[in-house]
């Protein structure tokens, strides 16, 4: 026995949420060439399957590119702090891709392992995420190489599996998901299924072993030559989570804000002294791969990459993790020289 819902039913659900003043986000078309996850202003705007993957990721809704943390007012010798909106409105994300949803448990670990990040957690708790299983893929997709699949349920409160003719099987995963769809579905005996997804492109375990033993390998330099050092890959990545804290205002007061930042910018590691420990784009590229396939996995026993392929799609220089990892694997197969010493110092 399964539960199903029609696209019309989904739109009705969105309408209800919007009507209650809650927020709903999902893929929408912003112009002829671009589909992004954005807040919906109407139920009709939702574009469930207009593309393989929207140009951004749903991390924006738990970790916005620009987030006011608090305001400060300087009063004589004192500083008064004023907190920003304490509780973000409830938000529903509809049509998130499974590789985006799977990034949320990862971000949960990041924002809770030492410092419990209130701003993140409040947004996160206010979120209900309904993902859509993928029926197609493009050359950038590689979820299967990092242990996920087009119908992965990690991070989703419910998963929609297309049945054709604008009908979807609803697979609730959490009480939030069940509450959302309670009374909205039709019992059915139809079971959705999706194709197996992209063929495995690399062996993640092998890549992990290789990058730790190949810290100084020329492949990093070769791969990074074409990289122009922007933030397009990291900012579109559902798992990249680095930020910068800035004060903006004047002598009398202002705001403290958290803005996205990325390891591909030279400024990211520039010390006040003028010294930059990560000289050159090769060491910055290497850092991104290291963080995803060695540093983070070492601590959290999972990869910091869901194979969504956004870094591939968005790179203006035609790079992205997929080709870099494939090149590393090839280089490693050709010359498995161990350089264990430096490997401890990424």
């Amino acid at each position: 026995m399964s539960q199903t819902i029609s696209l019309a039913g989904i739109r009705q659900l969105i309408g209800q949420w919007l009507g209650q003043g809650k927020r709903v986000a999902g893929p929408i078309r912003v112009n002829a060439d671009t589909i992004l996850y954005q807040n919906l202003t109407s139920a009709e705007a939702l574009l469930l399957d207009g593309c393989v993957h929207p140009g951004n990721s749903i991390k924006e809704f738990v970790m916005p590119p620009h987030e006011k943390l608090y305001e400060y007012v300087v009063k004589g010798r004192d500083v008064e702090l004023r907190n920003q909106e304490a509780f973000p409105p409830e938000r529903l994300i509809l049509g998130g891709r499974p590789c985006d949803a799977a990034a949320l448990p990862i971000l949960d670990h990041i924002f809770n392992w030492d410092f419990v990040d209130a701003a993140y957690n409040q947004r996160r708790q206010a979120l209900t995420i309904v993902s859509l299983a993928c029926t197609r893929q493009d050359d950038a997709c590689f979820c299967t190489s990092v242990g996920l699949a087009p119908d992965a349920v990690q991070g989703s409160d419910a998963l929609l599996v297309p049945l054709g003719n604008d009908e979807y099987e609803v697979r609730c995963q959490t009480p939030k998901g069940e509450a959302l769809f309670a009374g909205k579905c039709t019992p059915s005996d139809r079971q959705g299924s999706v194709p197996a997804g992209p063929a495995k492109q690399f062996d993640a375990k092998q890549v992990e072993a290789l990058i730790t033993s190949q810290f100084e390998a020329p492949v990093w330099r070769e791969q990074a030559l074409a990289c122009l050092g922007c933030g397009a890959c990291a900012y579109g990545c559902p798992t990249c989570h680095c930020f910068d804290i800035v004060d903006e205002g004047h002598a009398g007061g202002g705001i403290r804000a958290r803005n996205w930042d990325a390891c591909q910018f030279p400024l990211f590691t520039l010390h006040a002294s003028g010294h930059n420990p990560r000289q050159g784009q090769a060491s910055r590229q290497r850092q991104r791969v290291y963080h995803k396939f060695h540093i983070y996995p070492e601590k959290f026993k999972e990869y910091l990459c869901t194979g969504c392929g956004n870094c591939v799609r968005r790179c203006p220089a035609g790079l992205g993790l997929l080709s870099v990892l494939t090149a590393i694997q090839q280089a490693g197969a050709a010359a498995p020289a161990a350089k264990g010493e430096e490997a401890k110092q990424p």
Partner: protein
Amino acid sequence: MLEQKLRQTCRELLANGTVKVIIGYGAAPAGQATRAVFITTPEGVEQLVWNDRCEANLVAYLKRPEVRALGKPAIVVKACDERALVVLQQEAQLERANVFVIGMACDGIGAPREAKCRSCEDQVPRFCDVVLGEVTKPADAASARWDELAEFMKKSPEERMAYWQQELARCVKCYACRQVCPLCYCQRCIVDKNRPTVISTSPSLKGNFAWHVTRAFHLAARCAGCDACTRACPVGINLRLLNQSMAKATEENFQCRPGTDPQAQPLIGNYATGDKEEFIR
């Protein structure tokens, strides 16, 4: 075939020691257009490709320290890319004799052809050391160069403001537009200055307007119109419109079409007694 001719030219340049590295287009992994390749051996030239997906403006790589370290380059350019190279030359950013420039006669990129190509006035680079191929598909109408902008300018100022508010709200300040630009070569971009901060670094509407207005003005009379920034923007902001409004203003008021005259003084650094503004004379 043009691709073979390109490879042959590059093979010779490397073999006879004219250059140390070829900066050209190579095949990208499936699904992507092409990507820059850096060829240092005569055998390596087999990687070079030439097709309508040779989108990037490779001149941007001339500013990268890693690329400079490879030694004297030969670079593959289209006519629009070459204009950026000429501006760099005018601004004393490169010693022309230290770069071998391979110009490709260009039928336009993208399928369908990009807007800039449909109205391209050049197609054949002019100041290269060698030009390969010939144009087989002339641009539709060079006179249509300002059509898109003219259409946009028909809107009221309020509508235009609303448009930019909506569009720039999406900017996340990834700076892909800056990084792909051959003419954004500042050692430290004004948006990266933080002692003190000049332009707020936040991707908020205020910070985004500050960034985009600054960017447009810093590229006025310099932008080559290669549209690399517009192609790079992951959130689909049509930066071309901003660039074009600057280009049209400088062309109409100062007869300056960037990158078409290596001998000309850069407009911004040029003092002309014939200036129509009183205050400057």
